[in-house]
């Protein structure tokens, strides 16, 4: 994938909006919408496609859904213009990439046009199960570590919005995709009123008001970001740093209380406990224990107590031991 090394981090005044540019060249406008199943990727693409169709454009939309289900990767290609031939967007040809989830946005980044593409991304992180295969506390997540600033440096025009938090503040976290529609609407030439009409068709009737608020919020956020490029970053990186504070796990077992009922041994998700020769519980594989506390909570005899010592404490304890 080739990305320009030097690029502008925000739009310049007087620069032609991509819609206008595409119309001039009589080429279709390519919008790629990606996210995690359940976030509302298809809804965004439907709203856009129906709006473009109502404006007399030829529209082709191609999506993956169903197989991805809730929690999987979902994408939707929307192409519209005077004449559209192929329903899918080739790599490096997307004018706009709208991502409802941070890692999904990075996954599809190579599809963006290197020199003029606009990247609009929610900074929400949905960590997939395979990114946390190592369940020990303190184990690093195998989730993308790029910060919004690093990504912005590689894309012609990039916006990292904490849309989920904005929607939450409006009272409905699920309106995050509509915040992004609001952001997307500023990159296209359709009037805001028509966007709102199109939206109202696709959101549940009870939530029209909150969704319209979300749309306007997303729109004003981008306008704010254009005039004032210094945008407050999402606190995602901070939260991630906190989650990585290492812990060491210590099991305190009261052997005289253990009645060998075997519940802890059989229910331990890591299978790291066993009954010893006297049929008393012991930690057989300390390195596997994640400190989930299931054994402590399910022990009817209060024989197990799990201590999670932060690394600092553990190091201090180790130093004490070596001194003694």
């Amino acid at each position, binding site marked *: 994938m080739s990305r320009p090394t030097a690029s502008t981090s925000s739009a310049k005044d007087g620069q032609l909006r991509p819609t206008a540019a595409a119309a001039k060249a009589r080429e279709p406008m390519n919008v790629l919408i990606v996210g995690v199943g359940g976030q509302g990727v298809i809804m965004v693409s439907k709203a856009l496609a129906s709006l473009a169709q109502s404006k007399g454009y030829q529209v082709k939309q191609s999506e993956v859904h169903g197989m991805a289900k809730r929690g999987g990767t979902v994408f939707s290609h929307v192409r519209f213009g005077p004449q559209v031939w192929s329903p899918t967007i080739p790599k490096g040809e997307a004018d706009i990439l709208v991502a409802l989830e941070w890692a999904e946005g990075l996954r599809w980044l190579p599809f963006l046009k290197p020199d003029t593409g606009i990247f609009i991304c929610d900074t929400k992180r949905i960590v997939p199960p395979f990114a946390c295969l190592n369940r020990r*506390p303190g184990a690093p997540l195998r989730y993308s570590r790029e910060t919004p600033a690093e990504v912005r440096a590689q894309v012609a025009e990039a916006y990292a919005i904490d849309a989920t938090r904005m929607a939450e503040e409006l009272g409905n976290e699920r309106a995050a995709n509509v915040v992004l529609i609001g952001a997307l609407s500023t990159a296209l030439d359709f009037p805001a009123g028509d966007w709102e009409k199109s939206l109202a068709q696709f959101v549940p009737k009870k939530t029209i008001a909150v969704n319209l608020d979300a749309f306007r919020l997303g729109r004003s956020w981008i306008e704010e970001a254009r005039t004032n490029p210094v945008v407050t970053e999402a606190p995602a990186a901070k939260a991630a740093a906190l989650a990585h504070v290492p*812990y060491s796990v210590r099991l305190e077992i009261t052997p*005289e*209380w253990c*009645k*060998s*009922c*075997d*519940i802890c*041994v*059989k*229910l331990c998700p890591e299978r790291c406990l066993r009954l010893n020769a006297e049929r008393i519980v012991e930690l057989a594989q300390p390195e596997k224990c994640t*400190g*989930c*506390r299931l054994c*402590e*909570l*399910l*022990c*009817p*005899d*209060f*024989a197990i*107590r*799990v201590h*999670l010592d932060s690394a600092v404490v553990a190091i201090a304890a180790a130093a004490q031991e070596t001194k003694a």
Partner: protein
Amino acid sequence: MIVDSAAEFDVREYLRMEMMPHFLCPGCGHGIALRALLWAIHELGIDKDQLAVVSGIGCAGRLSAYIDANTFHVTHGRPLAYATGLALARPDLHVVVITGDGDCLAIGGNHLIHACRRNLKLTCLMLNNEVYGMTGGQVSPTTSESRLTTTTPLGNAEPNFDACALAAAAGASFVGREVTHHVPKLKELIRSGLAHPGFAFIEVLCDCTEIFGRKNELGSSAEMVLRQKSDLRPSAYRDSVDTPFRSNDLPTGILAKTDRPEYGAAYRKAAAAQRASKAAKASTGANKGKA
């Protein structure tokens, strides 16, 4: 961390250490329920001196002996009656009743329905293990149909009680049910029950492994705990997976919550009004006498 408040909660702070280890059989669900109760008490920050635990007779009744608080181990089936008197006399205390299915529904069934009706501020924790464990495994009001016990060697033919439906019908203003497998959820339920300003009835589905489980060949303690999970699935799916532990579908969580006037407060209000009107009469009578 997974359970934040679990880190600072040490159950041993709430136990009478000289009584431990407790007398319950290996794998008995009552121990797990006791932990959930103490955890909820810890989270609410209830002072041990302000906590009164009343329990009846049976395996569940014995639990009060292990709690380091004000505890009463009273007659069979009557913990709710004792607790009613205690809660009326000392409205400043948190009164918790620990009772078993036989204690609560058979011997003390009458007390239960009237406690529900009165709506006095009490928390009633009924540990349902479907059997009279302490006396050797006789059939109880909650034993599922066709289950084997020492008094139903051919399988129980009686229909069983849905204790929560009974309590709700009798007027309990808070009714909830949980299994011992989900300890944090059980703790949350007990916590909301303790915070409820009225009569809270909480049914905990416990495993009796040594007597009920053995008689009905329900497997080891661990298998019984794991079965609780499949137990809560929709019945059509559950029946295709494994034999249901309980014959009826049992929903969990908070099942009923109503906002009814609390009996203790209403009683004290009426008593104060009565005293005031008596005093007023006495003073007017005295004035008349003078005139």
